[in-house]
């Protein structure tokens, strides 16, 4: 088969003001790339860390988007390529969430998971029979067919902050059996938890040239036996990793720690002793905790939010991330607010979880925005986010040194941050936000 030159693009989005920006190597594009046949020559561009040159030669363009805040930029990119007579394909999480609009901007939209299906799209295109929509929603391919991502496509030096390599993203499963209020994962990946075979996970992990990972699965706490087997199997690799919630079980936490759990994202949704003790149990196992705090739920007043924020000081979190409730399409929140006529902003650029787009039940939108800003300022008033991250980094570096897996930072990139020269101006806590 003749070589097809594909420009694979991950569009940029506007980062939230005041927060430390870290660009991680995106997972979706390289997972898609792994499903393409060998005769496709891929030039991958992540617009968040490099400029996109529309005039680079290519036969076809593919857009991969994860966030709602990427879709409008993706449509601008598609328009530019259409001016140049190029065919534009698109897929990814936010392509599925915003499919009705997306389809009006691209030549072909792929919905669902692409394992075993990408080549047919290219053959159709070659024969002039490209379909407007390739719809595989609800028809997940066998999980065994999910192979290693094409991480060779990354320009590694761009995912580097002052010589420290960013974590690689990795998934050990797809789908989710939970239906959490603000989440669309069960719509996107199916309502069944689909764990990858352990041997495939180990093979994939072993092949990643990075000792630090982010296991991006929605929740590993979906099948305890698989979870235990996973941790036992990956422990010999001595990788260190971040993940979402781990089962609250002494044996599982112990196995996770031995398998390299670095820190976890844990939702903090109330001020109960349970939350306090949950965080303590992670720490007792040497696992750090980044609290994720969702603000603007219908049962929250301004005072409730402030009490929750103040509570964070009592539970010894290593980091905290605050988000504003956002009704993403295909979530129950979206349905509820839509029925109640409470969504006032449908500009997807504003669906960044840092901007209020709906009317909260017990406060005004301005009050919620104020609470959100108060939360970031309050939690990081004595120690900046970057400084707290540095402490977590030191923890993992020490563990790696003890295990003989530590890789010193790349001195040649010490003055670079995500491909740009480091800004050495000193920020005060007050103006950092």
């Amino acid at each position, binding site marked *: 088969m003749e070589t097809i030159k594909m420009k694979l693009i991950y569009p940029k989005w506007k980062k939230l003001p005041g927060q430390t920006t870290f660009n991680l190597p995106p997972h979706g594009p390289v997972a898609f790339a792994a499903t393409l046949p060998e005769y496709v020559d891929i030039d991958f561009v992540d617009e968040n860390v490099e400029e996109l040159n529309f005039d680079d030669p290519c036969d076809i363009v593919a857009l991969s988007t994860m966030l709602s805040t990427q879709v409008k930029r993706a449509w601008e990119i598609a328009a530019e390529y259409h001016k140049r007579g190029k065919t534009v394909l698109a897929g990814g999480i936010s392509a599925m969430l915003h499919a009705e609009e997306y389809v009006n901007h691209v030549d072909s939209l792929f919905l669902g998971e692409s394992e075993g299906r990408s080549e047919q799209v290219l053959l159709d295109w070659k024969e002039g029979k490209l379909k407007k929509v390739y719809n595989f*929603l609800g028809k997940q391919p066998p999980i065994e067919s999910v192979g290693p991502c094409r991480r060779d496509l990354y320009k590694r030096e761009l995912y580097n902050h002052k010589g420290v390599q960013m974590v690689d993203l990795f998934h050990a499963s797809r789908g989710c059996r939970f239906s959490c209020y603000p989440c669309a994962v069960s*719509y996107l990946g199916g309502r069944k938890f689909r764990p990858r075979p352990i041997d495939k996970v180990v093979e994939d992990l072993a092949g990643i040239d990075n000792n630090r990972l982010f296991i991006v699965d929605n929740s590993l706490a979906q099948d305890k036996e698989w979870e235990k087997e996973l941790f036992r199997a990956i422990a010999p690799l001595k990788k260190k990793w971040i993940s979402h919630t781990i089962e609250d079980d002494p044996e599982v936490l112990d196995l996770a720690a031995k398998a390299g759990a670095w820190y976890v994202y844990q939702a903090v949704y109330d001020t109960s002793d349970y939350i306090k003790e949950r965080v303590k149990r992670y720490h007792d196992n040497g696992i750090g905790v980044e609290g994720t705090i969702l603000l603007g739920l219908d*049962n929250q007043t301004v005072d409730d939010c402030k009490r929750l924020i103040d509570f964070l000081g009592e539970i010894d979190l290593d980091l905290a991330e605050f988000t504003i409730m956002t009704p993403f399409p295909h979530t*129950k929140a979206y349905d509820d607010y*839509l*029925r109640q006529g409470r969504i006032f902003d449908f500009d997807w650029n504003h669906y960044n979880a840092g901007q209020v787009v709906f009317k909260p039940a017990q406060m005004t939108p301005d009050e919620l925005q104020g609470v959100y800003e108060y939360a970031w300022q309050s939690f990081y008033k004595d120690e900046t986010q970057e400084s707290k991250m540095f402490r977590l980094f030191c923890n993992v570096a020490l563990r790696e040194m003890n295990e003989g897996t530590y890789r010193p930072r790349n001195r040649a990139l010490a003055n670079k941050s995500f491909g740009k020269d480091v800004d050495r101006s000193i920020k005060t806590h007050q103006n950092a936000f």
Partner: protein
Amino acid sequence: MKVSESYYDELFPFLGQWDMESLCGLKIRTVDGKTYVIVTELYQENPGSSVTYTGEYLKQQICKAKGLDPDKIVYLECNPNTNSKLSFYDEEFFEVNFAADPQSRYRRLSVDEVKHIVG
């Protein structure tokens, strides 16, 4: 989060957004000479699009399957009580007028109205 069978008389398979295989609860009641079509969201039991997201397309499919005139029914969406600790999963019924603008398309029924129609 299993939805009680008391919310529906039958399970109705439908095509959701992009013809995704989906499932809802369905109850059809005639009260005071009016035909009420009540669709219930099944959450985890629904593999595809929600009843709210599918909207009028679901109404059309039910009317076609049941031989009903879409202009002569009252279409209700039910957000069933799932005995969750979270208030988001409390029972709610909405009358839907798809011809209205999005801000006034849904009218929440009072407890008395629900009792009168559903019993």
